C-alpha cells in the first residue's frame, strides 16, 4: 500500500499541533491551579485573621454590653429607689392635701348649712308669727260666729227636744186614754154603740 507523502506530512503536522495545544492547556491548567492555591491560602489566612479580629471585637462588645447593662441596672435601682421615695412622699403629700381639702370643704358645708338653717328658722318663725296673727283674727271671728251658731243650734235642739217631748206626752196620754176606755166599756155598751153605728150607716146611705 502506498501512502501519499502529503498525507504523512499533514498527519505529522496535525499531531504536532495537537501535542502543542495539549501542552499549552496543561501548562495553563497548572498555572491556574497554582494561582488558585495561592488565593485559597490567602483566603484561609484572611479568614483566620478575620475570625481572630471578630472574636476580639465580639469580646470587647460583650464586655461593653455587660458594662452598659450593669450601669443600667445600677441606674435603674437608683431610679427605683428614688421613685419609691417620691411615691411615698407624693402619697403623704396627697393625703395631706386631701385632708386639707376635706377639712375646708366640711367647714364650708357646715357654714352653708348653718346659714340655711338659720334662714329657714327665721322664715319659719316669721311664717309662724303670720299664721298666729291670722289665726288670732280668724279665731276671734270664728269664736263669734261659732258662739252665735252654737246658741242657735242649742235653741233649735231645745225646741226640737221640747216638741219631741210634747209629742211623746201626747202619745202617752192618748194611749192611756185608749187603754182606760177599752177597759171601761162593757159588752152591753159595745152592743149599743154597734147598733147606733149601724143605724147611722143606714140613715147616711139613705141620704
Amino acid at each position: 500500500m502506498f501512502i501519499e507523502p502529503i498525507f504523512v506530512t499533514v498527519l505529522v503536522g496535525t499531531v504536532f499541533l495537537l501535542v502543542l495545544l495539549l501542552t499549552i492547556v496543561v501548562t495553563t491548567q497548572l498555572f491556574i491551579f497554582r494561582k488558585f492555591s495561592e488565593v485559597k491560602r490567602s483566603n484561609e489566612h484572611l479568614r483566620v485573621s478575620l475570625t481572630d479580629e471578630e472574636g476580639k471585637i465580639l469580646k470587647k462588645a460583650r464586655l461593653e454590653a455587660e458594662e452598659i447593662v450593669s450601669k443600667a441596672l445600677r441606674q435603674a435601682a437608683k431610679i427605683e429607689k428614688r421613685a419609691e421615695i417620691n411615691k411615698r412622699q407624693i402619697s403623704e403629700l396627697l393625703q395631706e392635701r386631701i385632708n386639707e381639702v376635706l377639712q375646708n370643704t366640711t367647714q364650708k358645708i357646715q357654714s352653708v348649712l348653718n346659714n340655711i338653717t338659720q334662714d329657714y328658722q327665721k322664715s319659719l318663725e316669721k311664717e309662724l308669727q303670720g299664721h298666729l296673727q291670722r289665726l288670732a283674727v280668724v279665731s276671734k271671728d270664728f269664736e263669734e260666729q261659732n258662739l252665735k251658731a252654737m246658741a242657735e243650734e242649742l235653741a233649735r235642739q231645745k225646741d226640737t227636744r221640747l216638741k219631741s217631748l210634747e209629742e211623746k206626752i201626747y202619745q202617752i196620754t192618748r194611749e192611756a186614754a185608749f187603754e182606760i176606755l177599752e177597759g171601761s166599756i162593757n159588752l152591753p155598751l159595745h152592743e149599743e154603740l154597734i147598733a147606733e153605728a149601724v143605724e147611722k150607716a143606714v140613715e147616711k146611705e139613705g141620704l
Partner: protein
Amino acid sequence: MKSDFDLTTAVKPSREFVARLRARLQEKLGEEVSLNLKVDPGILGGAIITYKGYYFNFSLKKKLDEYFEKNKNGII
C-alpha cells in the same frame, strides 16, 4: 133583695144582739139582711161598716183620734 152588712167590731157581740139587730134592720129596710161580722179590738168600740159599697167608720178609735187631734194644744 138582700142587704149585706160587713161589720167590724171591737168585741164579738152576743147571738141575741146579732139576731135583734138583723130583725130590726130587715124591718126598717123591708128586705132580707145579712151580717158579716169581724172583730178588731183596735177600734176600741163602735163599728166600721161597709154597706152597699159605702164605707162608714163609726169606731171609738176614730172619735178619740179626732178629739185628741182637735184638742192637742190643750192637752199638751
